[in-house]
């Protein structure tokens, strides 16, 4: 395994990243990206929200989809955790419940890529929680 990594090794990654970022068109405008919020309160975490969030971060990168993955609080749908709110550019947010890796995969392939709704959408009258 050799030498243990140190923070200074981050410099190289930074340079690679800078080169890559300048190629991206949308990086300065988060509104034009897919936004994913994973509910991470006690209920969500206990049901596996962390694995779901890790899955989204890794898979979206692998599948070359530019997205912002963040966490949010409890939306009040504790029975359906882990819940995930997906906002496609220019569309209303959609909340999916009971999300696991298989479902997350489905959401990426069908909803994010093609805009087809996937089973498990929570309420119809849902309004996004304004934080702060």
């Amino acid at each position, binding site marked *: *395994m050799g030498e*243990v*990594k*140190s*923070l*200074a*090794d*981050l*410099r190289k*990654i*930074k340079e*690679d*990243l*800078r080169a890559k*970022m300048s190629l991206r068109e949308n990086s300065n405008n988060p509104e034009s990206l897919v936004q994913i919020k994973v509910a*991470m*309160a*006690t*209920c969500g*975490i*206990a049901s596996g929200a*962390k694995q779901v*969030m*890790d899955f989204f*971060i*890794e898979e979206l*990168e692998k599948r070359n989809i530019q997205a*912002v*993955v*963040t*966490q949010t*609080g*409890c*939306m*009040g749908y*504790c029975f359906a955790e882990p819940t995930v709110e997906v906002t496609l550019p220019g569309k209303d947010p959609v909340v999916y419940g009971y999300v696991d890796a298989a479902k997350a995969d489905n959401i990426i392939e069908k909803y994010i890529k093609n805009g087809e709704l996937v089973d498990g959408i929570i309420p119809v009258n849902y309004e996004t*929680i304004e934080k*702060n």
Partner: protein
Amino acid sequence: MKELSLHILDIVQNSLEAGAGNIGILIAEKQNDDQLIIEITDNGKGMTQEYADRVTDPYVTGRKTRKVGLGLPLFRQNAEKSGGSFTLSSAVGKGTCVMAVFGFSHLDRPPLGDMAGTFVLMAAANPKVRFSYHHVTDSGEYRLDTAEVNEMLDGMPISEPEVIRFLKSLIRENLLEIKSEA
């Protein structure tokens, strides 16, 4: 919660909710003293003594979406179940400090779990908040501060997958080096 790292992820949400800009996480694995200590300190809005005394009651919560709050009660329960203790001190306008002591070798102590992944996840999801991590074991210690990470990144976002991957393995290797169970 199946892992202590998930409790940390949960308790830190309280700090974020309280508007904290600085959050410190200390983990001390003191096998020689048969203790595992977790301390989470923030500079959020804090709470009154009266509220702090009641906050491990499941029916006391600051949120409005539901009437119960189980984060702190579950954390406390797990600590006490393993022969440890739980203390919370807070001052309005200054911040809050939550400390839980677990019996290290107690059968009911949950494993520490994926600390590297948990820390990086919090840091990446909240880039404006400064997180400092301090992990002590009987064989050494490891510190990481997101202020240093951001300085090193020089404007590149901490939430990029490459950075996340790097930080995870950075923490993992260093924890291995100090013989942490995480």
